[in-house]
């Protein structure tokens, strides 16, 4: 269901006009190293990965390359003939590949292999760690804005507990005493749930392995967290969920993505409007749409919103890392994110994840 007609669509991966042509890079080896290298290089606008090669057709990097629309090959000469890379990166660690490359690559084309390749692999690992750290730092910075919501949700039950306990000091009706004691127990339980939600949200995410995540469940969980950061009382929330949709990734990171998108959407509406959360299966993959009826994003800003440290919020209100981190998480999950926006009408963020079969962890049916 669309609530407005989008006029602008932008994907971060489109090359920018009026910039020098990107460096054309080919990656040889699609194992763990090649996949990680592909992921990092793909995020850099001035580099175009033109092809990935592996003799093993089931190598993980080949699948990743196909998801990113990067050509895959099993022979080096074919790739060089088709794509004319300016740099070939050999991450196979295979001495035979090292010597054969010297003969296959035309003069003028750079080659990275051996120890240099290993150094790059270490840098890529370092970059991946930094991205995880940045995500955590941004999440903790965001929790600062939860103070008002947390105070509201703790102090209200505390008022109930205090009021009832004061009344109990001279309440003579035994039935009323029992009922009010039950109310106190319920209020305490509600208060502890707040701490449980928030501690699980703020914990570090890097240690949890990727698994199948129930997307609808995560969206609902994110709504619970987001209401600490933004006032949802006057926001109409519409949910249009397809049952049992899943995505593969780190559940904590996906929760963070959803919290961020919902928070942004609500902030764009200034406390009044419609927040629409939709999930669907599209072309075998999972699609999530988060739409608002808020202020929208100016066309000239659309291609910058995923850049690090870019923010339209006043100083101290936004880190400028929210959408940048979201983009990194989505890429890590082998998905994509795009935005449609119309100034004065609202924005829709569309997330697409590759199709997965199976049941999400922790789901009964």
């Amino acid at each position: 269901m669309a609530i407005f007609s989008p006029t602008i669509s932008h994907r971060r991966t489109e090359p920018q006009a009026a910039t020098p042509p990107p460096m054309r890079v080919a990656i040889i080896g699609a194992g763990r190293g090649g996949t990680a290298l592909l992921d990092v290089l793909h995020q850099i606008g001035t580099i175009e990965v033109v092809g990935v090669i592996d003799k093993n057709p089931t190598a993980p990097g080949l699948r990743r390359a196909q998801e990113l629309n990067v050509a895959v090959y099993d022979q080096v000469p074919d790739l060089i003939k088709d794509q004319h890379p300016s740099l070939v990166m050999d991450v196979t660690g295979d001495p035979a590949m090292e010597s054969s490359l010297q003969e296959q690559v035309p003069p003028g084309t750079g080659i990275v292999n051996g120890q240099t390749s290993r150094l790059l692999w270490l840098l890529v690992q370092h970059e991946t760690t930094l991205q995880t750290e940045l995500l955590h730092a941004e999440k903790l910075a965001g929790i600062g804005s939860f103070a008002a919501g947390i105070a509201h949700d703790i102090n209200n039950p505390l008022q109930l507990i205090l009021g009832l306990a004061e009344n109990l000091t001279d309440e003579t009706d035994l039935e009323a005493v029992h009922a009010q004691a039950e109310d106190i127990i319920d209020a305490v339980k509600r208060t502890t749930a707040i701490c449980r939600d928030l501690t699980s949200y703020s914990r570090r995410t890097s240690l949890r392995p990727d698994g199948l995540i129930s997307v609808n469940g995560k969206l609902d969980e994110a709504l619970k967290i987001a209401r600490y950061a933004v006032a949802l009382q006057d926001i109409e929330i519409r949910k249009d969920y397809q049952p049992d949709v899943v995505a593969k990734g780190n559940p904590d990171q996906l929760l963070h993505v959803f919290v961020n998108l919902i928070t942004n959407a609500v902030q764009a509406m200034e406390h009044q409007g419609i927040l629409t959360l939709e999930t669907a299966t599209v072309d075998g993959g999972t699609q999530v749409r988060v739409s608002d009826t808020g202020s929208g994003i100016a066309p000239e800003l659309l291609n910058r919103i995923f850049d690090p440290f870019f923010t339209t919020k006043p100083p101290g209100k936004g880190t400028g890392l929210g959408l940048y981190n979201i983009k990194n998480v989505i890429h890590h999950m082998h998905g994509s994110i795009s935005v449609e926006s119309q100034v004065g009408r609202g924005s829709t963020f569309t997330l697409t994840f590759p199709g997965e079969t199976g049941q999400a962890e922790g789901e009964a049916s």
Partner: protein
Amino acid sequence: MSEFKSGFFVGGESCNGRVLVVDDEPDIRKVVRMTLQKGGYDVLEAENGEKAIEVINSGENRLLLDVIICDIRMPKVNGIEAIAYFRQNYPRVPLIVLTGFPDTDMATSLLRQGVVDYLVKPVEGEKLKASVARAMEQRELAHL
């Protein structure tokens, strides 16, 4: 109508005054009612600013309401908007803010607008009753 004084009869019961409690949480309205009724007050409730405006404008309330206790974070018309309305249209009815969020800037700004007290939940029954009693004194002074 300015000769009206509190300590009147409502429904045949003796009453120290009529208080409107505005809060979106039914639990809060319940305990505040409990506390104030023990103090001899007649208590009305509203779940948001919009309802509160309806209540104060209905029937005898526009004349008989003595004190308003108002939350800030509420749906529809929030506390800030409701307080502005009450100050404008019922400047003689004293206002007490009872909120879950201790915000010094907001407290200062509201007290400047004439709110008589800014209480942060959880507030003890005695303190709440004392605050309402002080507000009642202001109300009576306003009638002189």
